[in-house]
């Protein structure tokens, strides 16, 4: 059953990866990142449950991952607001100053 959960986790991660790599909209890109972290949450919880359920380290790890997801969301939207205010940019392709 662990394998089934890991395959689900891989599916969620890769759907998110597609969005993170392919989307032009910054908000859609962040949705992709959220889906990727979602996959990681499923994998970490499945490892805890099927490998070492007696130790609570896995649960604490998932708690940290959920916090990371929250921080990513908050900082991501702050950056989006900053970019939009500075250069009316809501697409990743229009924020390419670092390339130059």
């Amino acid at each position, binding site marked *: 059953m662990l394998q089934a959960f890991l395959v689900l986790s891989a599916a969620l991660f890769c759907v998110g990866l597609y969005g993170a790599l392919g989307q032009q909209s910054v908000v859609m890109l962040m949705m992709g990142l959220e889906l990727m972290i979602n996959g990681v949450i499923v994998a970490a919880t499945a490892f805890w449950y099927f490998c070492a359920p*007696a130790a609570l380290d896995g649960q604490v790890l998932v708690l940290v991952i959920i916090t990371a997801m929250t921080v990513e969301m908050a900082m991501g939207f702050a950056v989006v607001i900053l970019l939009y205010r500075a250069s009316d940019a809501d697409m990743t392709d229009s924020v390419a100053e670092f390339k130059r």
Partner: protein
Amino acid sequence: MYVFGFAVLAVVATAAGVAVFVVDSMARATFALAVSFVAVGAELLLLGSGYLGVITVLMMIMEMAIMAVFMIMFMMNPAGLMPMSMVHNKRGSLAISLGAFAALALGAILVPWPDRRGKPAGDVTRALGESIMGPKMLVMIGVSAVLFATIVSALTMATSRGRYDRSPSAPMGAGD
């Protein structure tokens, strides 16, 4: 019943995740992501993680509600009145994603994972609470500091009169 529940939730989570990048409306994409998160939260409940499952569902519903507001503020076509496609390098990202999925799924199936050792505590939520208020308190202290730093830095960046505001309509020093 357990396997059936897992399978249904897995299909819903993945299908809703795919729908995020397929539907023609930003608002629908947001709600599809919320459905995916709720299904994942239910999967966590199946894995005996009551607390983590419930906070995932509650937090993600709130987060998606906030995201829906951002969609309407920033994006064109929030209601899906016309087809939208905002992708670049679609073929390349699809190939990378499918390749990554094949590698991860093969690894998940072929790797000999260790056997289960021990069994969960009777009340996992209580045990987790005692753990983070006891031997794992350093983790909680770190998390709280990170969250506080996030609040301060996000507000600093997002405020319209902050030091990072470079808007032509409000140049540096204009509000001083």
